[in-house]
């Protein structure tokens, strides 16, 4: 509060209470405090002189004589009853400003012909970003009330804004309504941002903290990107033209990259940013030319102007509004750490599917081995092989080839997988060693089904392998896919 103590403040106990401080310019300092106009009755006699004796004059003809407080209350009630005075905006020039040690501000608002005394209490004053100073034109908002002790009416101020703010606000609302009616702010025309942009364009001042902040956020979150600056002025009178030109440069550069056959170099998203500032500083971002350039910009655009509470028409026109420039950079790129986590999950899936593939192959081999185990003891196997005989050789070769291929593939697979996935294929290999014997599972029937036949001597049941095993006249039994035939050999056609 000391920051606003007037130089004239008297020290210590000399200081008058707040209400007694001079609060308007017109009152000369040396004028004595206003006196009650009604003479104070000093004696019974003077009282008797002024007051008519009761009964002499009927009450209704007596002049109504009021006390000061009564008059003040009548005025006060009249003021309070008037709705126009309860919620007023008053524009004027600030006269002398006095701030009491309690922190309340006393000042006058003047125009050519009148003045109005104002009081702005400390609590309201301290939350205001704006401070009235002598000579400024301001708009004060508050209520008119009467201060009994001094017999004055004054404006009890709730807020003060620089004059002209109303004009800006009005122009803002008017332009906003007009552009909204054109559909420039429609949610339907908002474009989605690319997921992981390779090239990001930034239109901002090259010398400000904003450009620095955006770079650092991008560096931290997604350094795989490239960022291209299109420098522009972001405040002052040339700013709107400069911003429009920067957006046009970005568009032209992106187009040029594509036309030159380097589409990977073309920016795919644009950030338009400016740091915090006064309403006037940010005003370029309410410029119609800027708004239209944003709408016409070929790339999705993120707008970040000022602080979170600042809203400009550029924000409405942008595809995405970010509360601050740093936030714009965060919105535009993914977080490297999160992407790394996603990548790890993908690797997990990859390893999982490889493990399942290999174990499925192993299960097939295990199944064959179990089938083989079921055929033991060895004599049964031998018998089966004997029955199948030469006709199985062909099938044997075929299946052995297949198994061999699978085995070779697994060996290669294991060599590749070993460093990354610790999968033991040893068991699978063991079962492959017994793979040849597993052919018995097939049995002769499958071969017979394909049109082959098994020929035995009827006398001893031996399977014939050579022509001279059955000279002419030997009785034969021929086994077919279904049933057996009896036959007699005519002897070998050619000498074996």
């Amino acid at each position, binding site marked *: 509060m000391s920051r606003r103590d007037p130089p004239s403040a008297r020290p210590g106990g000399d200081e008058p209470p707040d209400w007694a401080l001079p609060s308007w310019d017109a009152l000369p300092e040396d004028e004595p405090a206003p006196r009650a106009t009604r003479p104070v009755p000093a004696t019974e006699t003077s009282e008797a002189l002024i007051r008519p004796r009761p009964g002499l004059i009927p009450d209704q003809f007596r002049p109504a004589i009021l006390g000061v407080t009564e008059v003040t209350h009548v005025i006060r009630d009249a003021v309070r009853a008037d709705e126009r005075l309860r919620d007023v905006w008053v524009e004027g020039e600030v006269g002398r400003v006095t701030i009491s040690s309690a922190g309340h501000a006393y000042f006058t608002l003047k125009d050519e012909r009148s003045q109005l005394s104002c009081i702005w209490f400390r609590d309201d004053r301290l939350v205001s970003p704006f401070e009235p100073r002598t000579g400024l034109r301001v708009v004060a908002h508050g209520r008119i009330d009467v201060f009994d002790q001094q017999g004055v009416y004054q404006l009890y101020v709730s807020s003060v804004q620089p004059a002209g703010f109303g004009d800006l606000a009005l122009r803002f609302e008017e332009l906003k309504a007009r552009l909204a009616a054109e559909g420039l702010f429609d949610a339907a025309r908002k474009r989605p941002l690319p997921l992981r942009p390779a090239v990001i364009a930034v239109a901002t001042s090259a010398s400000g903290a904003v450009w620095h902040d955006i770079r650092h956020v991008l560096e931290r979150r997604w350094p795989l990107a490239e960022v291209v600056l299109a420098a522009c002025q972001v405040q002052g009178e040339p700013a709107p033209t400069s911003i429009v030109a920067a957006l046009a440069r970005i568009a032209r550069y992106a187009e040029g990259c594509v036309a030159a056959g380097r589409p990977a170099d073309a920016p795919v998203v644009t950030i338009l940013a400016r740091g915090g500032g006064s309403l006037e500083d940010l005003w370029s971002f309410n410029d119609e030319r800027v708004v239209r350039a944003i709408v016409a910009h070929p790339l999705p655009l993120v707008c970040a102007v000022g602080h979170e509470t600042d809203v400009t028409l550029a924000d409405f026109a942008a595809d995405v509004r970010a509360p601050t420039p740093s936030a714009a950079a965060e919105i535009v790129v993914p977080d490297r750490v999160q992407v790394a986590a996603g990548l790890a999950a993908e690797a997990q899936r990859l390893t999982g599917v490889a493990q399942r*593939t290999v174990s499925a192959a192993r299960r097939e081999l295990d199944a064959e081995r179990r089938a083989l185990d079921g055929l033991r003891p060895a004599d049964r196997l031998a018998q089966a092989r004997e029955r199948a005989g030469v006709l199985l050789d062909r099938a044997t070769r075929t299946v052995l080839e297949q198994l061999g291929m699978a085995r070779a593939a697994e060996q290669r697979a294991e060599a590749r997988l070993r460093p990354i996935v610790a999968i033991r294929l040893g068991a699978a290999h063991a079962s492959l060693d017994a793979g040849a014997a597993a052919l018995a599972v097939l049995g002769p029937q499958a071969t017979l089904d394909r049109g082959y036949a098994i020929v035995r001597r009827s006398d001893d049941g031996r399977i014939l392998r050579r022509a001279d095993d059955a000279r002419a006249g030997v009785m034969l039994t021929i086994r077919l896919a279904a049933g057996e035939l009896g036959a007699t050999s005519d002897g070998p056609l050619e000498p074996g």
Partner: protein
Amino acid sequence: MPPDIANLTFDEALAELQRTVAELEAGGGPLEASIAGYERGVALHERCAVLLADAELRVRRLVERAGGALEAVELRSDDEALPDGQG
């Protein structure tokens, strides 16, 4: 012939990795093809991880040449003071 993994961008490598995993999960191919797919998947993953770990933000500035041609000029020093509204 698939493109050389070392030349893939992050997005290309990640997209192919996701495709590869989906194909492997769908199954059906011969063991040989699965193993080859797995091998490529591992290489793609490594490519992505290296890009994520080693990347350095490239910073450039659009400069307008005489005749209106635009060029993106590499910026190195962190706090180069540059006039606005030019280039």
